[in-house]
């Protein structure tokens, strides 16, 4: 890790610009992960399901080692890990698999309004099949109200799905408390941990989690691989979505992609070893970024709780400056906007709206994500350029002008368009 901590970028061929500040979208593969994967593309190419020769055996051994590495990261048993193509498939399988298996007795699902699209869309799909879904609201800080969760659970509820960490605002849900409530009420608890695994300590037993989705490319592993933890005691049963050779305990047929799995395993092992130091370092960078912006720009607001948040995420509203216009002004920064002006809908982020962030502020937000290869130089560069762009755009913003003149923007009758 020390070499990674160095202030100069260590990734070979990494272009200096644009500065990558979008670690919640994806992460680069750690070079150590790539090294671990390489032999499994060429000389160790065997099908891990081939039982009759050493090519198959060495692949199987690599897969099983990786399965253990994934399990260890979350305190699970390796028999409880199923490999999938990523967190989207894991979330689909968990929700649809459990809902379908228990449908004769239970037809109710609980999730949260700020979940990732693949959870919300799976739920919408289940609604079309006749399931009932409760979408819990969140509080202003982005966290679920546990009393509302308790009140929503009925004897018809089969599964509660609540993400560990939100992809836009980085807030950490009270997972252990949610797990305890679900276990007490006899309801399965699934958590989408794509943004949490490897970033914060997770223990499926201590937190009473029954199913957990993990993504490779969010933790410096390859894209196209993920995992689903499925508890064995008490046993969670699911209907498979992909049928075939019966791999992965019948839950997910298809030849396992050995190199990707080796990469995911290595990424988990590295994360487990370095999580503590990395979190500490990222928190320092995150604070440097936010404090740097706050020192030079008035009227900026953090979306989501600051303390109950992963260290590598900021989501900031820069009042009076539209997010997409701002992104164009910081061309040398790779960031993402909470404004959905790029889509035809003109709707700002549904996550920010669920927090109760007013629409005009939701349109002014940027997500700034830091990660393993972020440096102090990156942060200082970002502060300088964001401050410059916001200042320039505010000077041409009619809303900023009104605010400076003391005109309340809400007092104006705006026409819809």
């Amino acid at each position, binding site marked *: 890790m020390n070499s990674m901590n160095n202030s100069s970028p260590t990734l070979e061929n990494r272009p200096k610009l644009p500065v990558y500040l979008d670690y919640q979208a994806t992460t680069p593969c750690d070079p150590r992960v790539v090294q671990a994967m390489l032999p499994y593309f060429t000389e160790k190419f065997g099908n891990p399901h081939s039982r009759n020769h050493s090519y198959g055996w060495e692949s199987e051994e690599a897969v099983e080692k990786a399965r253990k590495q994934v399990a260890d990261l979350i305190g699970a048993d390796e028999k409880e890990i199923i490999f999938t193509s990523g967190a989207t498939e894991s979330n689909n399988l968990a929700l649809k698999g459990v809902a379908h298996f228990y449908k004769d007795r239970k037809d109710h699902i609980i999730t949260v309004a700020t979940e990732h699209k693949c959870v919300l869309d799976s739920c919408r799909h289940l609604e079309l099949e006749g399931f009932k879904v409760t979408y819990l609201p969140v509080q202003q800080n982005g966290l679920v109200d546990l009393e509302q969760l308790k009140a929503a659970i009925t004897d018809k509820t089969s599964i509660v799905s609540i993400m560990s960490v939100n992809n836009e605002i980085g807030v950490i849900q009270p997972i252990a408390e949610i797990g305890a409530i679900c276990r007490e009420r006899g309801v399965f608890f699934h958590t989408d941990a794509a943004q949490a695994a490897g970033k914060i300590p997770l223990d499926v037993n201590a937190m009473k989690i029954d199913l957990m989705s993990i993504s490779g490319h969010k933790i410096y592993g390859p894209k196209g691989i993920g995992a689903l933890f499925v508890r064995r005691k008490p046993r969670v049963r699911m209907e498979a979505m992909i049928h075939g050779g019966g791999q992965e305990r019948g839950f997910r047929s298809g030849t396992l992609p050995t190199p990707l799995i080796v990469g995911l395993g290595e990424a988990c092992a590295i994360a487990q070893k370095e999580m503590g130091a990395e979190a500490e370092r990222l928190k320092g960078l995150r604070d440097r970024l936010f404090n740097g912006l706050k020192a030079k720009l008035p009227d900026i607001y953090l979306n989501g709780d600051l303390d109950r948040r992963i260290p590598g995420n900021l989501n900031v509203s820069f009042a009076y400056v*539209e997010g*997409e*216009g701002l992104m164009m002004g910081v061309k040398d920064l790779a960031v993402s906007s909470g404004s959905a*002006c790029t*889509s*035809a809908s*003109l709707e700002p982020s549904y996550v920010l709206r669920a927090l109760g962030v007013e*629409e005009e502020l939701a349109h002014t937000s940027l997500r700034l994500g830091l990660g393993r290869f972020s440096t102090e130089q990156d942060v200082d560069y970002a502060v300088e350029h964001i401050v410059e762009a916001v200042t320039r755009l505010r000077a041409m913003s009619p809303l900023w*002008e009104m605010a400076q003149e003391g005109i309340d923007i809400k007092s*104006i009758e705006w026409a819809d368009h």
Partner: protein
Amino acid sequence: MAYSEKLLDHYDNPRNVGSFEKNEGGVGTGLVGAPACGDVMKLQIKVGADGRIADAKFKTFGCGSAIASSSLATEWVKGKTLEEAEKIKNTEIAQHLSLPPVKIHCSVLAEDAIKAAIKDFRTKNEPSKSSGDKAAE
């Protein structure tokens, strides 16, 4: 999204950013859009004694396409009579900047802003002047 060079130029070097005093003689102000929709344009014209738009200014809260559309609009209205300026179509703005389909609304807003500024000018100024313009045409 790939933007045209003309659009990027207007975003990087916007023309005529600023404000006129609203109640100054000859000034018409158009304020269109809404903060909740992510676009607000303020476009102002200053009409000279000859009835032509002598100067124009804008301020815009919005994406790059909205900023470029309003910047272009201020360029185009200058030197035109109100009747000529009124004829500027959003499609011309969209075409000039090569706006992608999801950004057409930005050009619509710019056209609305021009019309709103002209309307405001006419409301504030004696009807004889605008009817005089018409007679001259």
